[in-house]
């Protein structure tokens, strides 16, 4: 059974500015990031769709002790997409020293940034970014 939306396909689209996900033909729910089956009902009957790229910050942290290869401090957040799924990414347009729980509930637009890989990461990657609206 062929993998419909692979990581490579997802990554390539994201680098071109499109956030792709899967919409289930059985239950109507969305799966982002992609999986083999619907994250809600486990059906394989899903279509690749472009995600609106809008969402709301649900939680965040400021990483001050980063992994090797990263430079802190930076903000990592979790956003609930308008379509339902939650995703992880970076809030870029805010000084990490100004990050507070006020961020939670703020509306964002999803973007992306390329991230250089290391010897364990199977190549370079891409992270989602969250731009605060208004």
């Amino acid at each position, binding site marked *: 059974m062929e993998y419909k939306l692979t990581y490579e396909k997802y990554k390539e689209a994201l680098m071109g500015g499109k956030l792709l996900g899967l919409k289930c033909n059985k239950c109507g729910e969305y799966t982002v990031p992609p999986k083999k089956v619907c994250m809600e009902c486990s059906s394989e009957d899903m279509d690749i769709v472009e995600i609106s790229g809008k969402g709301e910050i649900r939680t965040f*942290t*400021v*990483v001050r002790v980063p992994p090797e290869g990263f430079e802190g401090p930076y903000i*990592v957040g979790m956003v609930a997409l308008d379509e339902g799924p939650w995703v992880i990414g970076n809030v870029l347009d805010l000084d990490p020293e100004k990050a507070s729980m006020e961020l939670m509930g703020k509306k964002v637009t999803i973007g992306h940034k390329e991230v250089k890989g290391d010897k364990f990461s199977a190549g370079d990657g891409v992270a*989602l970014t969250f731009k605060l609206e208004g």
Partner: protein
Amino acid sequence: MREVAVVGVGMTNFGTSEKTQVEMFSEAAMEAITESNLEPKDMQALFLGNVLGDFEEGQMNMAPMCASDIGMKDVPATRFEGACASATVALRNAYMWVASGFYDIVLAGGTEKATVMGTPMATRTFAMGSDSRYESFAGITFPGAFGMAAHLYSKKYGIPLERLKKQMAMVAVKNHKNGVMNPKAQFRKEITVEKVLSGFVVADPLQLLDCCPFSDGAAALVFASVDKAKELTKKPIYIAGTGQGSAGSLCNQKDFTVIRAREYSSKQAYKQAGIGPQDIDVCEVHDCFTIAEILAIEAMGFFEYGKASQAVEDGDTALDGKIPVNPSGGLKAKGHPIGATGAAQAYEIVKQLREECGERQVKGAKIGMIDTLGGDLATVSNMIFRR
């Protein structure tokens, strides 16, 4: 399924060790085997937790090296990896092979040497527990994941962050207080809430003393069928129930103040044991971060969701509280050699049920439980022990 008991336990001091992972495991294993009145040749298999041996010492396939070092010749030796829950997953499998009747006596445990990597590399390798394709490139770390959990918890239950942080600090204060009484603990000094709140920030809102340390250490247990156990020891400690649950990447779990893998795992363990959380006399839970202990004791059913941080403040989790949590000092003070942690938790519970814990003894403890979490809440395993 037949009854299975622990007949011997062993554990190294936790902290920074000059010894290799094999050497540490051999010390813990020989202590456990000797205490069981057995010899290594009596062990029919080894079930070993080890997470990052590949990165720490360039050692893959750690289990056969460990078995060979103590003279367990020819028998199967297998490494189990479930991130920080690895040893409990190994123990649970060891239990099942004996319960099934396939083996009568086996050795289980774990070993780890995390300090040798240094903080940046250790943080990188620990973060390999996150979804490497869809999450890791955002630079998420383990403390970062639990920092996000703390913010979620504060908002969801309407507990102002400043108040929650004090209650979280009380988890660290309690576990350090217990650690003072544990001669094998990495940290054996008391701390204060003020000290926790003045540490540098690792990942908002978690400060240094909200976090467990990187550690070296090993622990081991011998499991035997009930018939053999009665021949070998006057104090067999029986396995009453076990559970294990899984979840995928962190983002797919959505509101992760409710850890579903833990609900699944602990319910399974209670069901097998035929008891509920109210029957547990003592427990060792996965306090990798202070907020993690709060989340654990809710999903295990000791407290209602949203109530555990207040319970900590009320002293319900202290040594003389309603449900004593982490009498050993927990991961926070005892230390967290990730591949060995579950085995060290089981070591503590066995010692507690045998009433061999000296000044940190929970008086009259008859039923004890361990809880170990791996990855971004992706693996949770529980075991319930009884006298």
